């Protein structure tokens, strides 16, 4: 069966994910070492240790994301994160930075290493480089590839691949985008945040809900229309005579119907995005996806009904997995 890797922003979400059928849960420390460094989110050292024993007792794994790029002169913070995750019994750490991978491979030779999507390893050469240089065992593929390209990659590599199946969607190659820091000073790579809430201002103007990020207008939404979070790349902008979502519509990824194709393409694990979402959301998505991967493993059709409920009323896309997306 494909492994289901599920998000946990809090210990309660971790327990909810495990109970809903997650094979593995990924989470991070409450600091700048991980790419969801949001207010009120993530784990203390004690919470991680408790979370890991809770998951292990129920046969689930815990993967710890330490996937920002360490700040020059402050690498020790990130090194400590890896050491603490290893000590707490994490099943793997998810890393993106070359220097950090080199450190982990040398200082923690027994620790399983996953390559974060933030490393944007988009072809077999990149993946084989990380595998041979650092002994990386699994690669989370960037969301720029089609299913056919993923299949081709798997034919040329020996390590496992994990792909995003559901949730928020980056339109840019992950880990290679500084749109957020251009406007707010805070970026996914350096601070673990994109379009941070601290720089968001909502205001009502002439019946519209206007959202601004760092002073730049990202959306103007008429009353009663859905109000997307002002993520930079999903904003509404103007170029010459054209106005619209120039980079991406405010949609989220749903690759549930592609699970059989992804399995055939040799993908080992499916990742659900959303460490910033509630335990209610996590439980619902995980339950539906667990049923789907079980159906796939048994050669049965996808249980469409369960998954349709999750995207109803909200636009979903198959993203780059379908070539037309480009």
């Amino acid at each position, binding site marked *: 069966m494909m492994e289901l890797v599920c998000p946990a922003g809090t210990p309660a979400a971790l327990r909810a994910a495990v*109970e809903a059928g997650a094979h593995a849960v990924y989470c991070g420390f409450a600091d700048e070492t991980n790419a969801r460094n949001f207010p009120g989110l993530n784990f203390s050292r004690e919470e991680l240790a408790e979370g890991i024993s809770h998951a292990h007792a129920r046969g689930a794994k815990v993967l710890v994301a330490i996937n920002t790029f360490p700040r020059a002169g402050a690498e020790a913070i990130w090194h400590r994160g890896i050491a603490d995750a290893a000590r707490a019994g994490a099943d793997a750490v998810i890393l993106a930075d070359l220097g950090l991978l080199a450190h982990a491979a040398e200082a923690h030779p027994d620790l399983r290493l996953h390559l974060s999507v933030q490393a944007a390893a988009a072809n077999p050469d990149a993946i084989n480089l990380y595998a041979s240089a650092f002994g990386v065992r699994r690669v989370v593929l960037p969301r720029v590839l089609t299913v056919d390209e993923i299949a081709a990659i798997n034919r040329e590599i020996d390590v496992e691949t994990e792909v995003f199946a559901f949730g928020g969607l980056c339109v840019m190659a992950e880990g290679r985008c500084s749109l957020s820091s251009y406007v707010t000073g805070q970026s996914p790579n350096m601070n673990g945040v994109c379009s941070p809430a601290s720089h968001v201002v*909502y205001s009502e103007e002439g019946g519209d809900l206007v959202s601004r990020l760092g002073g730049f207008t990202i959306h103007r939404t008429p009353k009663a229309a859905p109000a997307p979070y002002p993520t930079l790349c999903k904003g509404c902008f103007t170029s010459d005579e054209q106005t619209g979502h120039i980079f991406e519509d405010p949609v989220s990824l749903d690759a549930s119907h592609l699970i059989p194709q992804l399995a055939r393409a040799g993908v080992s694990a499916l990742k659900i995005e959303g460490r910033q979402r509630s335990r*209610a959301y996590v439980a619902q998505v995980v339950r539906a996806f667990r049923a789907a991967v079980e159906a796939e493993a048994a050669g049965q059709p996808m249980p469409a009904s369960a998954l349709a409920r999750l995207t109803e009323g909200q636009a979903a896309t198959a993203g780059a997995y379908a070539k037309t997306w480009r």
Partner: protein
Amino acid sequence: MPAAELPTMPRALALAIRPLPLLPLSVALGAVARRMTRSHPSMLKRLGDHGGKRFLIDPTDLPFVLLMVPARASVTALRRGERTAHDARLAGPLSAFLAMLHGAEDGDALFFSRDLTIEGDTSAVLALRNAIDDAELDLSAELAGAGGRFGTLIRRALERTERATGLALHRMDDHGEF
């Protein structure tokens, strides 16, 4: 995830509670808040510096608003329209707040669907949302607990109210129960 149809407070009920004096309500809410803070110490830790912020909770179908300062475990009921300084304001039907509080709905989904609107310090709201979600709160259990020997009676009354109104008055994941 779709926000399921949220029930609005029946108008009759809203009218019925309009004349309630707010001071005793504030006292009662304060007692519940203190109790919750005591039994969920990780909630304040999770809030960090945001714990000291003033959150104005505006249940739009009720005749009053609540000013909450988590670090002081203080909740004050105020008439709507009464001017009060605050760092962030959350507005929406009572049912949306209760559904979020009890893990029945996802805060982001409620926001995307415009059931909840936020103004002011967005970071503080996010922190509050995450801290509450992690605390696995159960308002019915807290109210019943605060009610001492009337606990069972209160619980039963809340159960009946939940059935009649469709409001989420207890923890809605697999661990909450009446």
